[in-house]
């Protein structure tokens, strides 16, 4: 290896020297020709023939080549280049390295702990909701590596509640063990792998293009219908599949509590012995960098004030994300079964955005449709999308959102968004939202 690289370096040097000589000769030749051409144009004597000119040029080039050779012979022979590479690390101590300037790692508040803070504030005005300046959220995200394979993730979120109080919420607390690329296990309170959006964006509005999550992925403690958080165990990893880029996800948790007065995530006590089971597959084909296709299936038995309800949630997604484009498409189907009766809910959204330098215009269309006799959603909490006097929304909600995100610094963004929703049985809702989202 060492000899090969030395030879390669010498070859490169010889090539460069030769190229320099030829360039020099041609440059001189070119100057000469230009001079001759000028003289020929100016001279009153008849112009030279092509043969004469060529002969003169060749003679001159020969002279110059001889001169260059003489000059090169006079120069001392350069010492052979040191080997470019590089034997395996010797047992002897390596030579003293040059001083290294380490860039400070941002937000490193302790040697082990890394802290990232996300926040957002803004204002909104909807047809049936008073115009409001709003405190969005303050999200303290912590990550620490405990060993080569073990790390910890914690996230404490402060959000404004419906009664205007701001209360802390331990959003996630996970111990993560990564054996290799094929097996990573996490245990604790987590965001469920139901679809793409819930794990890709979580609560960090700065990371989201839009000012809010799609309706179908609204947080369960803010009127969302899907189980977005759970306490349990998650296993994920790659499946050996070559360029197909297959990955798996498997989860088991307490599931969601739908008793109206309770916290949706069952943090301390499950209401039944049945565990929510979720499994998913997704692929990131190497040939189409940025593309991800996947699906998930989740089953749980819900304990409600009425009869027990079986819940099955199927999601599918096709997303394409790179530095410029963001194309998100997701669909979900939820089936609740109680006493032999079925209630099906379907929803989807599609979102398209394209970055133009620091600006990113976007468009989203979403659809959600739940039957009015669904045995579970009658227990839900009010959703931010619907007017305040509607305590629980069950029905159809659909409509577009258009907006513009402007990243005015690398770590802060200003967003404007217009929403128009049609709601079954209610007046249409128009809304304008402004948000400043940042991270530090």
């Amino acid at each position, binding site marked *: 290896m060492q000899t090969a690289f030395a030879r390669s370096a010498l070859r490169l040097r010889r090539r460069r020297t030769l190229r320099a000589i030829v360039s020099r000769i041609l440059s001189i030749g070119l100057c000469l020709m230009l001079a001759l051409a000028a003289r020929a144009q100016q001279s009153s004597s008849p112009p030279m023939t092509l043969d004469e000119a060529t002969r003169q040029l060749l003679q001159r080039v020969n002279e110059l080549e001889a001169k260059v050779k003489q000059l090169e012979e006079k120069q001392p022979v350069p010492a052979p280049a040191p080997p470019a590479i590089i034997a395996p690390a010797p047992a002897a101590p390596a030579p003293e390295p040059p001083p290294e300037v380490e860039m400070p790692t941002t937000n490193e508040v302790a040697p082990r702990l*890394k802290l990232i803070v996300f926040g957002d504030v803004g204002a909104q005005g909807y047809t049936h909701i008073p115009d409001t300046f709003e405190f969005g959220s303050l999200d303290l995200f912590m990550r620490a590596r405990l060993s080569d394979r073990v790390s910890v993730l914690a996230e404490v979120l402060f959000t404004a509640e419906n009664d205007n109080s701001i209360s802390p919420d331990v959003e996630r607390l996970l111990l993560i063990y990564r054996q290799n690329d094929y097996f990573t296990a996490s245990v604790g309170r987590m965001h469920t792998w139901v679809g793409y959006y819930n794990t890709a964006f979580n609560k960090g509005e700065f990371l989201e293009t839009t000012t809010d999550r799609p309706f179908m992925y609204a947080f369960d403690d803010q009127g969302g219908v899907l189980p977005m958080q759970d306490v349990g165990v998650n296993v994920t990893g790659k499946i050996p599949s070559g360029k197909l880029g297959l990955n798996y996800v498997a989860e088991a948790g307490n599931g969601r509590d739908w008793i109206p007065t309770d916290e949706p995530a069952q943090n301390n006590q499950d209401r039944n012995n049945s565990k929510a089971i979720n499994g998913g597959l997704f692929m990131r084909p190497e040939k189409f960098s940025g593309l991800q296709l996947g699906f998930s299936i989740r089953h749980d038995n819900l304990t409600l004030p009425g009869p027990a309800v079986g819940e099955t949630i199927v999601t599918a997604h096709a997303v394409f994300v790179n*530095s410029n484009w963001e194309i998100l498409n997701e669909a979900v189907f939820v089936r609740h079964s109680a006493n032999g009766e079925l209630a099906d809910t379907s929803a989807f959204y599609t979102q398209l955005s394209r970055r133009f330098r620091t600006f990113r215009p976007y468009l989203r269309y979403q659809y959600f449709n739940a039957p009015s006799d669904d045995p579970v959603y009658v227990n839900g909490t009010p959703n931010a999308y619907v007017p305040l006097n509607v305590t629980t929304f069950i029905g159809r909600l659909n409509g577009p959102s258009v907006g513009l995100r402007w990243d005015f610094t690398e770590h802060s963004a200003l967003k404007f968004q217009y929403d128009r929703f049609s709601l079954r049985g209610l007046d249409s809702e128009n809304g304008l939202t402004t948000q400043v989202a940042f991270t530090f």
Partner: protein
Amino acid sequence: MNKPSSLTVLSGLAILALFVCAAPSAWAGDAIVVIVNSSNPVENLSLGDLKKLVLGDKGRWDTGKAVAPVMVAAGAPERAAFLKIVCGMNDADMSKYFMQAAFTGKSVTPPKDVGSAAAVKNNVASSPGAIGFVKASDLPGGVGFKAVKIDGADSSEPAYKIKM
């Protein structure tokens, strides 16, 4: 219209020849050489694999050692070129990528930033799982690391893809 004289034509040809001859040195950029620790058995990487290694999508070498990317700090032209060619990103994109990856619970470590090409070589030489890159002109000197081919091409070959 006057016909151009033979000398003018010849001059034009000479200029063309001069450009053709000078072009390779003026236009072709300095190659960016990918280096790994000399104890690493890897000799060749695909561009796709290199992207996975740098972005933490592949966290371990076949030897089981954790992948530890290291790169010269933001602002260096070779870093900008490398990120663009290999990852399709700029520095801001990469920063956001790793922020999002950490936020979504992925166990990934962003590349370690160091202040110079010498520090990159030094880091790679001292860490068995490290991978870094330097300009070809910065490659000579130092021990304990080796260059790897990319898609089967050596950095001195025309087919080599990572050039400034």
